């Protein structure tokens, strides 16, 4: 297992270089550059030239690429062109917020998806099964940003029981008791977490349903029934453990989708995470921030897949990595 983990981490290096090279190339190919923000009638052309020289934007792309790779190897993400703050600081202000949102979404995905899939499998071909299928398909087909806007409209405006944006209550949070502050965080996580997670939960429900149906037809399940065990014990204790194996595999694959989905969801809910950071950096062509964000996100995806692989091995004793 250890050598497997080390090998996976080493393979991440060419992956990171590939991703950064691709992103750098895309930025170079896209029109304009970071100095466009200084292109206003009030800002003289010489100021733009000074800024270009300062950030090396007047140098050839190859030169800048090699400089960037050299800095990254030394752990230097550089500075944001607009804020002139270290990119490391900017990213690590936003990263915990995205991780929090992603984890909550993952919980929602797993909890809702597994629950619904289990119910569907236990009640196969009943109206509940059909109803859940229809609802699952509806949410699965829905674009995340549209779902986010609808959730906001329904639960923050028409029936205002949940906050429409942010991580905390902008006005009162600092005056709440610790327990109230905790609830405030939880409250603010519900809508963005659901917007990010519900569509994927619908997909998980389908996987869980088919996986559990396959498992509960196995001979050992029939044996368990014959022994007089309750359906709940059979399903939860014996069936689910095997039925969850494909779900765990999918877990690792969901991370990239969560991060990409967070770009729109964070913007709509004004969640101060990396998704929003990337959007703003792309619009302003703040190259160091863009590269830094993709670097970190790639690392997170690699880590997530690795965790999924380890979990898979833990759950299924037949799996042994060498």
């Amino acid at each position: 297992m250890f050598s497997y983990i080390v090998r996976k981490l080493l393979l991440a290096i060419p992956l990171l270089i590939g991703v950064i090279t691709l992103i750098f190339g895309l930025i170079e190919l896209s029109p304009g550059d970071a100095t466009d923000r200084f292109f206003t009638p009030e800002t003289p052309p010489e100021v733009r030239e000074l800024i270009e020289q300062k950030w090396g934007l007047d140098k050839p792309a190859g030169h800048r690429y090699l400089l960037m790779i050299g800095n990254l190897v030394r752990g230097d993400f550089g500075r944001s062109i607009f804020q002139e703050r270290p990119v490391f600081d900017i990213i690590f202000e936003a990263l915990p917020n995205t991780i929090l949102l992603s984890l909550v979404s993952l919980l929602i995905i797993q909890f809702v998806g597994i629950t619904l899939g289990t119910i569907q499998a236990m009640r196969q071909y009943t109206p509940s099964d059909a109803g859940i299928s229809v609802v699952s398909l509806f949410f699965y087909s829905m674009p995340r940003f549209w779902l986010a806007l609808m959730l906001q409209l329904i639960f923050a405006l028409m029936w205002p029981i949940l906050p429409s944006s942010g991580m905390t209550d902008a006005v009162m949070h600092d005056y709440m008791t610790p327990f109230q502050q905790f609830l405030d965080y939880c409250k603010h996580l519900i809508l963005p977490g659901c917007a990010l997670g519900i569509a994927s939960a619908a997909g998980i429900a389908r996987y869980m349903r088919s996986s559990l149906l396959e498992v509960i037809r196995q001979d050992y399940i029939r044996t368990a029934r014959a022994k007089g065990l309750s359906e709940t014990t059979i399903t939860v204790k014996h069936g689910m453990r095997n039925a969850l194996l494909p779900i765990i595999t999918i877990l690792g694959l969901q991370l990239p989708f969560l991060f990409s989905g967070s770009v729109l969801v964070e913007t709509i809910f004004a969640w101060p995470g990396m998704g929003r950071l990337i959007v703003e950096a792309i619009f302003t062509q703040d190259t160091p921030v863009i590269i830094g964000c993709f670097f970190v996100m790639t690392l997170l995806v690699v880590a997530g897949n690795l965790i999924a692989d380890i979990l898979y091995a833990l759950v299924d004793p037949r799996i042994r990595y060498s």
Partner: protein
Amino acid sequence: MSERKRLSPLLPVAGAVLAGLAIFSCSGGEQAGPANTPASADGPRDTLVVGFQSDADLLMSVVYQSASDSHVMSGIFADTYKATMDCQLDYKPYIAKSWEFSEDGTQISMKLQEGFQWADGTPLTAHDMAFTYELIRDPLVASPRLTYTEYMTEDSPVVVGDYELLWKFTRAYDQITMTAHTGLPPVPKHKLEGADRATLRGNPLVREPLASGPFKIEQWLPNEKIVLVPNDNYQGPDEFKPSLNRVIFKILPEYATRLVELENGSTDVAEAILVADADRIRKDHPDITMHRRGWRSMDYVTWNQLEHADYKAKKANVAEGEQVDWNDVKRHPIFGDRAVRRALAKAVSVDKLMADLLTSETGEVYAKRSVSTITPALCNTHNNDIKPMPFDVDTAKAELAAAGWVDTDGDGIRDKGGVDLSWKLMTNAGNARRAKGAIIMQAQFKDIGAKVEIETVESNTFFERLRKKDYESALSGWSAGLFVDMSTMWKSGDAQEFNFPSYANPQVDELIDAALAEPDPAKNALMWKEIQGIIYEDQPYLFLYWMDEIVGVHGRFDNAKVDVLSPFHELWTWSVDPNQVKYAR
């Protein structure tokens, strides 16, 4: 054996969800404050929550770039002057107690109020102001305000005493602009004197500014909120002392979210509200007042008078930094002809555009015809006598025919010398108003025998192509400046990067130089008016409309100032009747 009925597994789940929602609905919340909220000595004051489009970046006058920076800075820094707007920019004393122009108009003697200080107790003096302009001049700083010093002498301003300055200029020009150029909020010299100027934007003071104004920053959570509280060390005039406990700029990049937050009471102010939404909010929320901000932005169609492929080829052949001589570039077969541009202007009903795009259900129009790039808010300088082009399809057709554009091949599109009256109209993605406007104009041009293809491009690409003149026509917009300087847009020459239509009129060039050099506001206003008249006749743009921006403000705020200078102007004057206070902290 009969099967026992099982409790639906959904029931406990549903129960948990409902219980959770009940807990959340009752906990904390925007409406209720903590029970032990202390009132201030003068009675309860309120908190203003502003829905902000984007976070601030650089809170220092020498390097700030965005509108967000400017809004926050106006609360935390004392300005040299207090700016007001009444047909022209007018300046009242603030840090500057008095100022006087010399007879020849090349010097300004300025006396400062004593008593202003930085939040650390250090007095704010003339030395801070002089140091500020020293930073602006330094190329290492790369200050966007460099043009402020364009006509100042190298040693300007000269510190005559701790509270006295002498501003020296190499020449006199418009006095309002000269005053504005001396009005940048000062930076604290005692904090920045030894700072590395090349990385000034990264200086800690940019993110943790030392306040000198009525407010100071209590908390700045990046991309979340900026919280301002009254500056205890503020020693300026009482009229600037805040009447609020806090001002919170809540960062909400998405328009729909800003609207939801205004409507559900999470925020008290939202700017740039669309006309249709303003109608709905007025109906559904009578406690929210819709303010008109004034004519701050306009839409227009620019006609590239140069044949863009030929210009691109010529540009590729000149050395880096050299300019293309427009006389060497082929004229665009359609837009290079003044008579055709004037005919096209008569083919578009701007009134219809305004009715369809900027008029409410109740018939309120949030636009007015544009005849100039000078905002009508500057009514002393704006030429109010220019009569907009009439919508007259028959005359448009006749003028096109007179210019040689007739449908020789019967395909419904006019042509001349084998060239169809057909062009691409470029506009930027993500602007629904311009997208609809382009479609309306496309249909109107079709009526006069012109074929228009709409090309929607991503915003960065759009602006790059405008700059490089890689377009035929483009539907774009301007945010109006409040300093009158038409040179960047209308002086001829490739060096004028904002002269998108490649407009060249030697008479206009001369008049612009003369107007810029004329110190007397009344005389130079006449010159600007003449320039506007000539430009309008030449129709380098199809001038469309100026838009009245709508800002929604919760009605409990008295003295809410929303004007062309700022959507939340002079925050220190905003107040709430003690009986209507919502947040007593």
